[in-house]
């Protein structure tokens, strides 16, 4: 065994065709899709290419690191190919997968695209779960989708002076842009904002207008105490009413905190009114 491994090693060293090419891209959709374009520009087998978001955490032997610069035109070309070949749903799933913090997210999407382009019916790409990259994308996208569904329910608004609804969330994944369309449709004539405290991003929706991210510095979002000083009249009362409602609705004979925790994980409760 050891002898054989030795031979292989020498093979790797002698020819640079066996080295792994690591492409580092920026942590945005544009950055990753530019990275994918960049990967296709390299005359190399996709098996020898790895896509990374951000600097590699560990050094790899026999690897070369290249940096892909974000390029709107190139990214747009990749996006168009994805939409044409695999359909909008697959594109949406890719975007969801890229909203995770998983280290292999860009690599999985890249290799899923490679697999898809070689398939007879590329529209069926996301059904090809037997493939590892496709399965990885599927798992990531499902995780994000689950959190989106959770957040649509577990997010809580507090009404501030002037009728502005404010919400603070701390999601695992970067899901604000996925939940904003839902709330913008639901509360079309309301002024509301959603603040992601882990990523320090703030999205606002002015009444009857399109929603948008606030670009400027949002480091100075006031603390909870500070915010509670600006509650609209009645806000605290409605919070108490809802707490009372949640306490009363439970059937004592069926008490099951285990099931409750399974359905509503503790990490959400920090920002919820009733806990």
């Amino acid at each position, binding site marked *: 065994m050891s002898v054989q491994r030795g031979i292989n090693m020498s093979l790797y060293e002698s020819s640079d065709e066996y080295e792994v090419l690591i492409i580092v891209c920026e942590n945005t959709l544009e950055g990753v899709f530019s990275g994918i374009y960049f990967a296709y520009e390299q005359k190399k087998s996709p098996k020898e290419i790895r896509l990374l978001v951000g600097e590699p955490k560990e050094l790899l032997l026999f690897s070369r690191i290249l940096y892909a610069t974000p390029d709107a035109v190139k990214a747009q070309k990749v996006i168009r190919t994805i939409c044409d070949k695999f359909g909008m749903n697959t594109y949406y799933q890719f975007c969801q997968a890229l909203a995770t913090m998983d280290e292999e997210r860009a690599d999985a999407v890249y290799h899923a695209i490679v697999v898809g382009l070689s398939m007879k019916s590329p529209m069926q790409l996301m059904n090809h779960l037997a493939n590892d990259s496709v399965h990885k994308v599927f798992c990531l996208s499902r995780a994000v989708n689950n959190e989106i569904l959770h957040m649509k329910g577990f997010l809580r608004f507090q009404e501030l002076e002037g009728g502005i609804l404010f919400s603070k969330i701390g999601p695992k994944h970067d899901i604000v842009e996925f939940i904003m369309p839902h709330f913008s449709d639901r509360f079309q004539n309301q002024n509301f904002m959603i603040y992601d405290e882990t990523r320090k991003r703030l999205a606002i929706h002015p009444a009857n207008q399109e929603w948008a991210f606030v670009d400027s510095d949002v480091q100075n979002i006031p603390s909870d105490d500070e915010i509670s000083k600006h509650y609209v009249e009645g806000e605290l009362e409605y919070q108490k009413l809802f707490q009372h409602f949640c306490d*009363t609705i439970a059937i004592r004979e069926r008490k099951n905190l285990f099931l409750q925790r399974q359905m509503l994980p503790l990490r959400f409760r920090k920002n919820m009114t009733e806990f």
Partner: protein
Amino acid sequence: MQIADYNSVIIGSQTQISIPGKMIDFSIIMEKLGVLTDAAKYDVACTSSGVDRSGDKSGMGNAVAGGICHSFSADGRCISLLKILLTNECAYDCKYCINRKSNDVKRETFTPEEICTLTMEFYKRNYIEGLFLSSGILNNPSYTMEQIYETVFLLRNKYHFRGYIHVKGIPGADPILIQQTGYLVDRMSVNLELPTAEGLKRLAPNKHRTNILAPMRQIQTGIKSSKDELVVFRNAPKFVPAGQSTQMIVGATSENDYQIMNVAQGLYQKFDLKRVFYSAFVAVNEDKDLPAIGGGPPLLREHRLYQADWLMRFYGFDANELLSEERPNFNVLLDPKADWALRHLELFPVEINRADYQMILRIPGVGVKSAQRIIQARKNGNLTFRDLKKIGVVLKRALYFITCNGKMQYNTKIEENYITRNLLSVKERLPFDKDGVTYQQLSMFENKENWLLPSLEDQFQSVSGQL
């Protein structure tokens, strides 16, 4: 003509009873909310699913077909709607009900305006998905239904609420009221209360089976004709677009599971119900006609009924396949699907790469989603056991019943006793303990003094093999 007149009466009245937002006395509302939530908590159906409606600029809210759960209460049940009673005054004397006439409980009544304000304020803060309004019988069924109608009318037309509304149809109310309410709400349900007419007669002397089935039939025909109209007129009003549901209490009377399943199947087939809900009997009253149950509500039985209900709705099973006159109750140890598979071993093993969808659905450990994924994924090549695991099949249950490319995963026998033994060794994931006792009773873990931890000596002994 009659309908138009009725509406104008309501519109006329709404100006008189409007309460300015700031003058609300919260302590009174708190009191009422407590009493009327407590009285409504035994109602099961708290789903917000079945209808897609986008928001608009003039109003507030939308509806999502998949439904959204906004919270979970201490019993692990979903809170998605503001589930309250309009009133807990009741003219009836049903023996299982906390609000029966002869009970001495605190009685409260919400005004329609109060309900609307609560709904809107809760909805705005994303606490709830909408309103679930039920009621005790105030004066008479028609009067109660009228109050419910007034509430939802205000909510839709004055407050422009576009979220989800579920109301109870009151048996015995004027059909025109039920018809009118149906055009405003998303879901309507009429409670069957108990599975059989005899049970109803014994425990709910004021209710009659025919009275319950009449509005159910009315809603069914209403939904059907509304759908027909929508084909021709795109903007025709939608009648109960999210469909009709019902619920029955399990364990208060002596019906067996086979009878209950047959009733449910009849409701699905003859009344086109969206859902039948089963509610484990909770002893809130003491009465000689009610069973004395030890160990809390029959949660395991309720769980088995829901499992079987799922099998009928999504897996193509018939009630008579799951149970029979000779075996009228579900197996306590095995879920209905595994139980069925063990009695039909001649159909197994199933070849995953070739079997049709219906057969794949019937394999224990394969759910609807994994079955669909199998059908899709196998178009791209033969599936192996590893792939099945990725797809989401629970292999530790399924492996006794399937082959991949002609081979079983391990050298297992197709033999009832053998498989049963192995399936039972894998602990079934139940939302509560086997005997229906919930985790609440493990109180010794809450009390640290009683919690015996292994001492250092014990740990040393376990290493040296003395324990």
